[in-house]
Every structure is written in C-alpha cells, then in structure tokens.
C-alpha cells in the first residue's frame, strides 16, 4: 500500500506560538492519498482542516512550527525541502489548489485570460523546462492549452471567455475557470478547500460531478476539505475525520458513513438533514487548541465519555481493513 501512496502524512504535529500560549493546531495527523483517489477531510470549523492544506502547500502560518511528522509526497518529504523549492516545484505544479471562494480569487481589473496565462507563465506546463522564456510561441501554446481546459470544464465559447472579466461570470463559472487553470498545470494532487460552500445547490452538484469526472480523466488525486458528509458520500472514495487537530477516524467513505465508529463522526453524520428527524446538533464548540482538554479532545462534548477518556489520549487503531478509529470506548467494546 505504501508504494502506491501519492501522499502520506504521518504523525504530523504543528504548533503556533500565540500571546495566550502555545497552540497545538495539529496533533498527530495521519492520512494518505493514493493516485487517482478522492479523499475527504471532514470536521467542523476550527478543527485544523485548512491548516493541513496550508502545510501541504508550504504556506505555514506565521509563528508556526512543525513538532513532528513527515509529509511524503511522491516519496520526498516536503518538510525537508527548502521553501524556495516547494514554491518552485510543488505548489501550483504538482499540488494544485482550489480555494473556497471563487469571488475573491480573481483580480477584477484584469481579464480572466490574462490571469490564467499568468499562472501558466509562473508554473509552466509540465513538459517545459523550468527556465523556458516566455516567448510569443510559448504564450500561444499556453493559450491553446487553456482553451482546451476551459472546454473540459464546460465553459461555452472558451476563446471568448479568456477576453472577459471576472464579473461577467457567475460563481459556478468562476469556480470552473479556477479548476481549469489548476488542471492546466497537470498536478498530481488537487487540494480543494470547501470549493462549493459559496455556491447554490444546483451549481454545487455540477461542480462536484465535474471534479469527479476530471479526477478520473486526468488521473488526479483530490483531497476534498468539507464539513458536509453529503459531499463526501457523493464524491469521495475515502474519508478522514478530524476533531480539534486530531485524526479521529479514517476509512472508506461507505464504511465511515454507514458504520461510524467514533462518537464524533456519529454525531456529525446525524446532523445531516437526510437523517435527523429531530434536530440534534452537537452542543458546545471545538475546544481551544491552547490548553486543550486532557485525554481525548472530544470528551467534554461526548455522550459516552468516561473518566478514562479524560486521562488517556486514544490513538488510531484498526477496526477492520482500512477503517481506523481513535476512541477508548471503542477499544473497550471490542
């Protein structure tokens, strides 16, 4: 399994120094993504999902420090690379990024084509040497590539679209243009940070299906950050659930959704409108990363927690196959 993994995050911990003390933002994060696979990263706001994305892109928050762990991407530990090399060779090239808000991702004063070409100028097409000069011929090639990609994401009149400004496109179209730009660089891995939260349901479905089809066509692995298990069910092969900076459960999307093992996953899924006749929710908030609760970080909100949960930190243990969970009560039960 290890040899086929495209990305392996092992035991990753990260802390940030703040005025109030040291905050453990990520605490022993563990997951992997294989080639061509779509993996969901699920959790409430503030649980560290976006921080994981930033670490993978080499964009550490200020004052952040990696305490432990490795991030193996195609066999190379990204944490050992110099920031300059990550910027040049990884970010935007082999790891692409689709942001949450397509409205804020464009400069309103330039045409879409100009901004897309700028991206390709910076990152280059994969078959170009890193120091290719930006000649007319290269530009024309880039343009042709972009038109091809816009066609792939179902933008009508791709050549004309390049000449238009961002405000002339709807939110869904902008998100598709972003996806086209990112895929033009032919990344191996695509990080999508809640790419559909700003969109309508009908558009959301279009984008999700588009992502799924493109991932298949281009053989791109996708890490989908979301808080919606509906999105996971529709799109993802596997899923990793995070709570307060810790991985609490991983497994195939089907197994996790239909047989959730961690109490947090269970309650998160129960919040989904398909299931909850009576509205339950999860009372309380994600605990602060500064002075987090001892033991299991979820225990103050957990319904089945015992005294042991407040003492002992649970680690991920295999339930069956790829399904793993970090919960003391589960261990006790089995």
């Amino acid at each position, binding site marked *: 399994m290890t040899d086929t993994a495209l990305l392996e995050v092992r035991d990753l911990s990260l802390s940030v120094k703040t005025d109030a003390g040291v905050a453990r933002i990520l605490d022993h994060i563990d997951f992997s993504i294989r080639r061509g696979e779509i993996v969901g990263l699920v959790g*409430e*706001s503030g649980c560290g999902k976006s921080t994981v994305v930033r670490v993978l892109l080499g964009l550490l928050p200020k004052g952040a420090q990696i305490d432990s762990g490795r991030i193996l991407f195609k066999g190379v530990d990204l944490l050992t690379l110099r920031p300059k090399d990550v910027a040049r060779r990884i970010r935007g090239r082999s790891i692409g990024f689709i942001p949450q808000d397509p409205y804020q991702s464009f400069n309103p004063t330039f045409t879409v084509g100009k901004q897309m070409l700028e991206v390709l100028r910076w990152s280059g097409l994969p078959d170009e040497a890193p120091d290719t000069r930006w000649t007319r011929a290269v530009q024309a090639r880039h343009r042709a590539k972009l038109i091809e990609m816009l066609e792939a994401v*179902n933008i009508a009149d791709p050549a004309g679209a390049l000449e238009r400004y961002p405000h002339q496109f*709807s*939110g*869904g*179209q902008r998100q598709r243009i972003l996806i086209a730009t990112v895929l033009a660089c032919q990344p191996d891995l695509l990080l999508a940070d809640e790419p559909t*939260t700003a969109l*309508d*349901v*009908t*558009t*959301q*479905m*279009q984008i*999700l*299906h588009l992502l799924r089809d493109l991932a298949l066509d281009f053989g791109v692995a996708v890490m989908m950050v979301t*808080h*919606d*298990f*509906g*999105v996971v*069910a*529709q799109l993802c092969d596997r899923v990793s659930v995070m709570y307060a900076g810790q991985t609490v459960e991983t497994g195939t999307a089907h197994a996790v*959704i239909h047989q959730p093992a961690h109490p947090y996953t269970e*309650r*998160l*899924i129960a*919040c*989904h*409108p*398909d*299931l*909850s006749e009576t*509205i*339950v*929710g*999860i*009372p309380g*908030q994600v605990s602060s990363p500064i002075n987090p609760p001892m033991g299991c970080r979820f225990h103050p909100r957990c319904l089945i927690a015992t005294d042991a949960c407040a003492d002992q930190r649970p680690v991920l243990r295999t339930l069956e196959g790829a399904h793993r969970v970090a919960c003391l009560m589960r261990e006790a039960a089995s």
Partner: protein
Amino acid sequence: MTAPLLQVRNLAKTFGGTGGFFSRAQPLVSAIDNVSFDLHDGEVLGIVGESGCGKSTLAKLLLGLLRENDGSITLDGRQVSGLPPREARRLRSDVQYVHQDPGAALDPWWRVGNTLHETMRIHGISDAKERETRISEVLEAVGLSGDFVNRYPHELSGGQQRRIGLARTLALRPRIILLDEPTSGLDLSVQATVLRLMNDLRERYKLTYILISHDLSVVHRMCDRIAVMYLGRIVELGETEAVFGSPAHPYTKALIGSAPKLVRDDTSVELIQGDPPDATNIPSGCAFRSRCPLAIDSCAATKPELEEISASHRIACPPELRRLTNGPAASVSSL
C-alpha cells in the same frame, strides 16, 4: 380558515429601465414578477431558489424597504407600502428581519447590550428599565447568559452571533420574522442547534416565520409550506410534504435532486445544467424553459400561471408537461 396575516397579491418589482439625460440607459430587470401568496398566523413559509431568483428583493418589499411597481402587500388588512414614515416604522416592528450575515449586521465597536438598546430606542421604547428587562428576557430565550451584553461582536462565535441577531428582533416583539439564509456559513452541527432554537422561539412567542434559503434541507425541516422561486416568479407553492413528497415542477425536481445525499445516487446525475439566465434577458414564456429537460415549443409562447394540482399544491407548468413529470425523478433524468 381565518384571514391570512399577510396577503401578497400580484406583486411586481422592476429595476432600471430608465436612462437619464446624462446617464446611460440601464437595462430593465424584472426582479419580482406577479408574485402572490398568503401567510397565515403561526406558520413557517419557506422561500427557496438559486441566487438571483428574487428572494432578497421579495424580502425587502415585504419589509417596506423597497416600493413595489405593481400589486399589493397587506398586513392584517392594512396596506404596507406608501405609509408615512412614522407608521411605516411601527409596522416594521411587526415584521422583523434577521440578516444573513450576523457578523456584518452587528456594529464591531458596540457592545452587544448597546446594540440591543439601540434597536429598541429606535422603535420608541424609551424606558431604560423596560429595555433592560426585555434584554435579559430575550438573551435567556436565545440561550445566552446575561453577561453577553458586555461582549463585542468579534468575541462571539458564528452561532452566538446568530443568536444575538435573533435576540435583537425578538426584543421588539414582532409577529413575523423574515429569516434570510439563517444557517448559511454555519457548520452542520451548529446549524442544527440554531434551527432547533428557532423552532423553540416560534412556539414560545407564537411567531410566524418567512424563511428564505437556498438550502432545501433546512426548508424541508422547518417549514409548513414552501414557495419555489425561479427568476422572480413562484413556480411551485404548496405544503412541505406535498412539495418534497411529489415535486411537480421540473425545476423543483432538479433542486431536490441536487442536494448531496448520504447515499450515493447516480441516477439523478445533473438534472439541470448551467446557470440561470441573465435577469436582463429572461426567456419568453416560461423562464425555466432554457434549462428545462422537458420543454416543448409551446413553453416559449405563454408564461405559465400557478394552477392547482391538488388541494394544497400549485405549480406553474402546463398540464401537457405535467403528465410527463408525474413519474419518479429518475425518469426525468433519462429523457
């Protein structure tokens, strides 16, 4: 049945369409077109549709913040628009509005208590003691402790900001609350607690809600009746069970099919494509025909009006098409 609390008849609102001597002519946008519905005391009416379908314009018309071009809104038998400012304000304390983005709706420099006082002062509650009592009462009602009056908005979480937004409207003892996307931007877990709170408050204060949302699951759980809007017109109106149980308009079917479900379902793959057309250039006849999987030639000719298909269920789609849409959703997608 008793007379409806709020009656909306043939409401229409257009923007633009005029060019001044010095300014360029603005294209005419028909934001609300011939909208009629009743709101009964104590019910929850959901208004759903994609962005740009006129939901927010409708809200502004109901609040009296915009003036309609045609049609009428009557609250308890009294015309809402065209009132002198003083009376309009009194009326507005009957119909209150909870903003979509509660963070933006609270003044960052003001403590929560100050904001709550201000709202009541504007609406003529001059007795400070009375205001204090009401504040402690509504804070308790939304499940926040009394010391929240000393907090600043940035010290509150998204869910707490929503609660303050609700508390602010409740302090005025309104009869109707317009909730604009009450759960957008909230995690599902927080969303659930906010919805439950809204249900509790409705029972406690005997409120009537109009809930505007593009999230069908929220509407499904909260509402007694639903109006589905597309480009300024209501295309389907009926009791929640009827609309969700047997959606009749192709647009409603597509909307319901688009919500991500927990069970992967590949039969309903993409019922509709593309985005709604530009509001300055709405197709003739049925506005939805450009994206409708069933559209026939006659759809271009006449604008369909709402017609009854059962006692509590009306749709704006001609009978010829309705026969086609009677099957389950899967048969629609196979066309």
